[in-house]
């Protein structure tokens, strides 16, 4: 939108300007719902695509879990489908080959992180809620916002298409380490790199948008320390994306050049592949890729968790009917977390032969960064004390987040120390640790956000009954999936084994006198974990049903503020129109003025003047 300058020279130009201004209600279907610049539509677009890919990524691992539990057996229901779609080379007779396992493994990670959580937690909720919560009428750059979504979408298309090319999709892990990622003979690896460049571009555009919106478009009276914690979380997340993604973009370009132009950025001298010397100049460094990758990928994990922490904070404050405890500590911690996130990355590289000095540095910073994380969790926990707790579905997910994230965070400690990481690196312990943080951590935060903000987006409540079914089944099965993995990891089971570790187990006669071979108990856990995973998949169906069914048949809200919340997004009509607020917004209060002594209600909205 341009300025309101009146003094224009030619009538023609003025006219165009007017049309642009007044035409908002008369856009075609395509401009209103598909190529929209409205942050709410874009948020919903990100949400649908993100949740769809979360489900798809889960389906990939569900198929992989069959291979781990029953290696060599055809996958029921989907086996024949796999064979017809992907060919008998990778899925002979509906059995998952090791190569296909690697493809699914690499893509599961990539899809969940970049096409699932980042769009769903950061972009979807961020786009929809942040402008509303700061009292803005839209994001600072609506057209860049649209560009960001479509760049993301095209990146998703490229990634999805890569499954069907000869050779298959990327299969060198979501970490795409060279030299394997460079020499592996499938074009899927190249598609992955191109897809990543598009996804990174989308995130960079989005990050700039969020930062300018939060800095410059806060409504009068919305000072920094009156912003809801969700906005702070998104603010820091945007900084992490802005500054951490470019090195991965650079690395992606370099790896693309290694693959396409046969350079040797990451290929060492003297590399031999399949018995033959590789015809490249050599002189490169595989470690360089690891440094560049993890320089992004560590801040990336904070990108994954911070929006969820923000959502949980909102839901907790609302459903305890009291302010968050330690708002200033929360803000300080999240800012410090943002800074520290950039100097811990090599704790993913302890096994690369680094010297003791560097190792000591990263161990120290890694331990330091646990401090703000714990402060945030503690503040959220203490916020429950003395609260008048309402146990609705969003609150259940927000409550469960706390111990689940606690487990995830605490189990990270042995990984942060070099001496213990030696035993646990690349084992199932690591898988359990990070899944506890993202799965019953972030994903529960996302669920909480969906149930919480659904009434504002649609004007209807989601079914409480099915919400509780979804919650309890998800919680139970999540723990049944990931808790046993700690035991498997400590017993020495490595990651990324398509046979679930059978080669290294006692059931393999070659291992009869090998100490540390995997016991039958440990191997048996593969079956129970897989069963829990499939049950978890089924448990999502009521949620999917609930989301769509409630649009038409959910209980209609009786007010614009069904949760009786204090933050500004509840001051709009339901659903908010283009332009969001029908009256001018001024902010008079802190974000969580619940149960203010002497007030007539147990909540005092931010836009309500203090007496």
């Amino acid at each position, binding site marked *: 939108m341009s300025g309101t*300058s009146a003094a224009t020279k*030619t009538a023609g130009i003025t006219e165009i300007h007017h049309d642009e201004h007044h035409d908002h209600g008369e856009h075609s279907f395509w401009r209103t719902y598909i190529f929209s610049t409205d942050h709410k539509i874009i948020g919903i677009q990100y949400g649908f695509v993100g949740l769809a890919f979360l489900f798809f990524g889960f389906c990939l691992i569900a198929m992989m879990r069959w291979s781990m539990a029953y290696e060599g057996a055809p996958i029921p229901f989907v086996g024949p489908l796999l064979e017809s779609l992907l060919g008998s080379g990778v899925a002979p007779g509906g059995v998952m080959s090791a190569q296909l396992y690697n493809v699914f493994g690499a893509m599961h990670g990539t899809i969940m992180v970049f096409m699932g959580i980042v769009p769903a937690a950061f972009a979807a909720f961020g786009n929809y809620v942040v402008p509303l919560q700061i009292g803005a009428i839209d994001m600072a750059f609506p057209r860049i916002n649209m560009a960001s979504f479509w760049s993301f979408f095209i990146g998703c298309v490229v990634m999805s298409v890569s499954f069907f090319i000869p050779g298959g999709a990327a299969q060198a892990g979501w970490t795409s380490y060279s030299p394997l990622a460079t020499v592996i003979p499938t074009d899927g690896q190249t598609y992955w790199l191109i897809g990543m460049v598009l996804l990174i571009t989308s995130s960079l555009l989005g990050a700039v948008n969020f930062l300018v919106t939060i800095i*410059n478009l806060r409504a009068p009276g919305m000072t920094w320390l009156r912003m809801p914690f969700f906005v702070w979380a998104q603010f820091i997340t945007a900084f992490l994306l*802005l*500054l951490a*993604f470019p090195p991965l973009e650079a690395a992606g370009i370099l790896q693309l050049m290694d693959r396409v*132009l046969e*350079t040797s950025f990451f290929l060492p*001298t003297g590399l031999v592949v399949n018995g033959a010397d590789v015809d490249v*100049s050599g002189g490169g460094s595989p470690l360089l890729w690891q440094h560049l990758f993890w320089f992004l990928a560590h801040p990336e994990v904070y990108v994954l968790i911070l929006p969820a922490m923000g959502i949980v904070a909102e839901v907790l404050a609302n459903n305890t009917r009291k302010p968050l405890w330690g708002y200033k500590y929360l803000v300080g911690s999240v800012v410090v977390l943002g800074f520290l996130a950039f100097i811990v990355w090599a704790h993913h590289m302890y096994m690369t032969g680094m010297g003791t000095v560097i190792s000591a540095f990263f161990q120290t910073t890694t331990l330091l960064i646990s401090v703000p994380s714990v402060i945030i969790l503690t503040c959220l926990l203490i916020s429950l004390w003395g609260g008048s707790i309402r146990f609705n579905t969003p609150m259940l997910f927000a409550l469960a987040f706390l111990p689940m994230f606690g487990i995830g965070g605490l189990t990270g400690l042995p990984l942060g120390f070099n001496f213990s990481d030696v035993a646990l690196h690349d084992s199932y312990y690591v898988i359990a640790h990070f899944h506890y943080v993202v799965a019953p951590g972030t994903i529960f935060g996302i669920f909480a956000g969906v149930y919480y903000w659904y009434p504002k987006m649609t004007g209807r409540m989601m079914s409480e009954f099915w919400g509780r079914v979804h919650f309890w089944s998800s919680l139970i099965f999540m723990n049944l999936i990931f808790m046993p993995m700690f035991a498997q990891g400590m017993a020495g089971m490595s990651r990324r084994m398509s046979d679930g570790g059978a080669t290294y187990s006692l059931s393999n006669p070659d291992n009869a006198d090998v100490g540390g071979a995997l016991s039958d108990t440990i191997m048996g856990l593969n079956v129970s974990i897989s069963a829990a995973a499939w049950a978890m998949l089924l448990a999502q169906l009521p949620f999917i049903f609930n989301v769509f069914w409630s649009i038409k048949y959910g209980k209609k809200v009786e007010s614009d503020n069904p949760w009786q919340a204090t933050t500004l997004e509840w001051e709009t009509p339901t659903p908010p129109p283009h332009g969001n607020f029908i009256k001018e917004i001024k902010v008079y209060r802190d974000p969580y003025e619940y149960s203010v002594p002497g007030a007539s209600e147990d909540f005092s909205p931010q836009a309500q003047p203090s007496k």
Partner: protein
Amino acid sequence: MEIPYTVKARPDTGLYNGKLGLWLFLASEVMLFGALFSSYVLLRVGAADGTWSMGLMDIVVGAGNTMVLIASSMFVVLAWAQLKLGNLSGPWLSPRSWGYIQWKWATVACAVLFLVVKWGYEWPSKFVHYDVWFKDSAVLHNKVEEGYHYDGEVHKDELWDEEKDKKFSLARLYLEKEIYVERFFKTYSEEEGGSHTAFNKAWDTGSLALSGHINGYEEAQINVEVTGWKSDSGVSESEADKILVGLGVSGEKGEAKQLRSQGGLLKEKVGYEVAKRAEYQLTKAGFSVALSVVGYESVESHPYFWRTGRINEDIGGKPRVKSILFALDDSHHEKDGETHHKEITINTSDVKRLNSYEPKHSTFFGIYYTITGLHAAHVFGGIIVMLYNLLPIGLATWHRDREQYANRIECFGLFWHFVDLVWIFLFPILYIL
């Protein structure tokens, strides 16, 4: 309602949205180029002796390009200043009274000149320049002797190595002094033996490359022979015969059929492209094909982007290129009253590796092309934006809202200064160090 602070600055931050957004974008760009510079440092520090190219860049051209970009940065500020003063345009012929439009076109001209120099001269001149590594140190030594031996006066102090009390061939001494030590070897102290120690080692093991241009080569003349036909390839007999007719077999009855059933020579002494295309079409049609080299033809040409596989590609047991005529760098040769580079003939069978100065050549060139390429892409993007702002489509905004237009130009100026700053780091690091 309008989005606030798109044109006017927000009082507490002092920034309008676009400017804040641009600074944040520049922060991400710093990280992007920073990652590439860090990669450069890591790769260079880790490079084995003799593998990091130095001194191959034309510093004069680079310095000239640097001046061009610095000038463009000045012009972009002058353009913006004129704009803020309200002078959209001035008379072209008196630069003292130039307005925004003139100074901006001057900026565009500088940017275009920069790209023309880089993409029109610097990069292409590298693509025709080659390094050749030999399989055997004896071949290397012979070729150096052949290429760099001087007829002419020889001075004793140039020939005699005081330390080893030994006579070196003038050719090798010349090579040692002029070309390799400066270009490829780190400078060691005298106690460590100087760079010459590393050079001597490379000389003895034969791992030095010779640099120069390809002036010509001997390329294979190939016979294409049909050796059989399988009927189970999904192609019918008549279709297969049609393919043969398409490849030049006479359409007269029986000739194609005879060739298909009994085999025979299809093409004689054709070039590589023709032979390979025929082979592809024949194999697709179910034929089995044998290519054989029956002779070599001398070609005069200065090819681009050749690699080892281009010359030693196996065709029926023989290489695609038998030998190359190689004009050696820094060798001088009088011929017909003119000074040329001395040409030597290098047989493919002696070549361990051949590569033009392209990204694949070495990690130095890889990172060089990547960083300068990404930088040039930013210059190119800048040109597009400048053109948009100068042509009627963008200028319309000036007529609608002067302040908004001036803001756009200010933001562009910030971006342009960043692009210039990246080059100012790039130039000494890649060209001088």
